[in-house]
């Protein structure tokens, strides 16, 4: 192994193998030293292994953890190949972030869906790269990382970066810029001077002890931490009240307001999809609109898509869920406009942009859709400046408080956005 592949990493090495780097014992009092959880399962001969972080490759009592300190071996040469411009509101947020970097502290960016969060980060990333700092950009969901990766490659064409997700272990290289899922942080130790956590409120990160530990463990003692969200959790809102610095951006980059959630009643849709729904779809088909249909459960996907296919056999569509082997390909064909629609679970509620789509939610009152999930789903619509509006239609059996709250959240954000728009 290249010695630099251990800089800021914490990797698993069998005790009987010779290893480079500093060695730590993998367990202390039954607590896994990689993920800080106490969830061991026995092996023969009094050995044991950690089941909490098993998906990243097993840590057992037969292993050690190895690592080397992060030396920031970078040349500081950087070219920003992005040629776009920031709106004045984006500009203001990006200045807040430069201040945060100078002060090495924590900062939250609360920006509506489609505010252009990624672009606002460019000045910060540019300066940090110049200062030879190591930067991690992470998100709980793989789709977010997959979509972010080409945009960062385009913006910093001269900068070497790796994108880490899933069970892949082969493509790691020592790079100044690292894109990864939050799970991958379990493989880092005091590596990052700057850590940016996108979609910080989303599953599986929010409220997850193991991933919270992974974040703490992956940053250096002195560090800058940026949280990004469109829909902060209650905990984050509490932290704002206690003084966590925050930048608000209630207006989308194209200055249009968020599409509001429209409600319609639909009962017993699992038994038989009603004519009302078919009529709505035929309207989308006639106007050649592309769309997403959100359903609460994995088991709803197939029947719903089959019905749509039976109704409109000439329209290309598919369904996708979290454990779908072809998930990335399907999302890509939707992006490429090779598919006219996707039936999906909440996995596509955030982080993905399909230009010019409408969104329909079946069973929006189901427990699977939280208030923030509904706001995120609505945020898939109208993201491009040439197509800034669209339909967000939520079918419910009962109008619940949660659905009402999601509607109200969007109305309130739009109210703030309108005020901001007037002030410019």
């Amino acid at each position, binding site marked *: 192994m290249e010695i630099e592949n251990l800089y800021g990493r914490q990797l698993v090495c*069998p*005790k*009987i193998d010779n290893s480079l780097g500093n060695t730590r014992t993998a367990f202390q009092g039954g607590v896994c030293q990689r993920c800080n959880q106490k969830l061991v399962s026995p*092996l*023969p001969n009094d050995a044991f*292994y950690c089941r909490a972080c*098993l998906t990243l490759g097993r840590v*057992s009592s037969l292993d050690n953890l190895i690592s080397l300190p992060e030396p920031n071996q970078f040349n500081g040469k950087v070219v920003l190949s992005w040629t776009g411009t920031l709106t004045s509101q984006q500009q203001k947020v990006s200045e807040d972030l430069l201040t945060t970097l100078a002060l090495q502290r924590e900062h939250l960016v609360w920006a509506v869906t489609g505010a252009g969060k990624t672009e606002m980060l460019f000045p910060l990333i540019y300066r940090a790269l110049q200062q030879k700092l190591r930067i991690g950009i992470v998100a709980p969901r793989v789709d977010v990382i997959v979509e972010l990766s080409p945009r960062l490659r385009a913006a910093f064409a001269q900068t070497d970066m790796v994108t880490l997700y899933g069970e892949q272990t082969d493509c790691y290289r020592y790079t100044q810029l690292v894109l990864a899922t939050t799970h991958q942080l379990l493989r880092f130790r005091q590596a990052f001077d700057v850590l940016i956590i996108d979609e910080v409120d989303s599953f599986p990160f929010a409220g997850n002890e193991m991933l919270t530990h992974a974040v703490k463990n992956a940053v250096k003692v002195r560090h800058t931490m940026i949280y990004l969200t469109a829909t902060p959790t209650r905990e984050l809102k509490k932290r704002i009240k206690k003084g966590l610095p925050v930048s608000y951006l209630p207006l989308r980059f194209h200055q249009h307001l968020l599409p509001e959630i429209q409600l319609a009643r639909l009962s017993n849709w699992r038994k038989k999809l009603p004519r009302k729904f078919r009529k709505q779809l035929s309207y989308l088909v006639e106007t050649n609109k592309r769309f997403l249909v959100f359903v609460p459960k*994995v088991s709803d996907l197939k029947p719903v898509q089959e019905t749509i296919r039976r109704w409109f056999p000439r329209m290309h569509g598919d369904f996708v869920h979290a454990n779908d082997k072809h998930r990335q390909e399907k999302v890509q064909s939707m992006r490429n406009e090779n598919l006219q629609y996707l039936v999906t679970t909440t996995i596509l509620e955030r982080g993905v942009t399909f230009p010019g789509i409408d969104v329909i939610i079946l069973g929006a009152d189901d427990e699977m859709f939280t208030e923030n999930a509904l706001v995120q789903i609505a945020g898939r619509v109208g993201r491009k400046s040439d197509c800034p509006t669209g339909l967000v239609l939520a079918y419910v059996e009962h109008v619940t408080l949660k659905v009402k709250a999601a509607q109200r959240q969007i109305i309130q954000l739009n109210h703030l956005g309108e005020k901001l728009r007037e002030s410019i």
Partner: protein
Amino acid sequence: MNQSRKLCQLCGLPLTEDQSFLSLLGIMSTDSNNLCEDCCNQLVLINDIFCPNCGRLQATPEMCFDCIRWQNKGYPLLEHRAIYQYNDVMKTYMQQYKFNGDFLLKDLFNHDLIRLIDSIDKDIVVPIPVSHYTMQTRGFNQVSGMLNGQTLSDILSVTASKKDHQSQFGRRERMNRQQPFALSVSSQLVVGQRILLVDDVYTTGNTMYHAANLLYQAGAKTVKSISLAR
């Protein structure tokens, strides 16, 4: 989301209610109790037409080409039986249980294996061994792990101290490899015995025929073999 719900041990998706119902009625065996419907459906039982000597699922009941080759080389045939076809879902199982070392998955097919072992005449049951290196890193023998409740005779050991996985070698190289096993007990314990060899997956037959050859040389009366997958 309901956190208390049981998850499928292979794909991690929650188990449906009708499934617990099916297992309640005894329609599903207790082994598949921890698998979701999708994973269960993907398991392919080898119970119809297969090669009589290696247990491979095939269209005709005649001896397959590979087995004819073993016969031509002068090896006594094994009458190998496998329970499941080695397909994607079995690969996933082996990946998680054996290569990622999730020892908790050892019992998933325990009943299937014990049932097959019980149905075969033999004096002793011998698991294919793993190397010292594997015991020091993986921490378990994946075959013995699956055979909880069965009396085993650990009479074989691995001689070649090889770290490499078999899958790294090409087919020809695998066939040409030298005898990888040695007898770890006195051959008096083998003489006249009817031996049943057990492995996790039967791929080329190389492992089984090398082990069987050694046991015949030591005086075994008969050697048969089984595996979870083929």
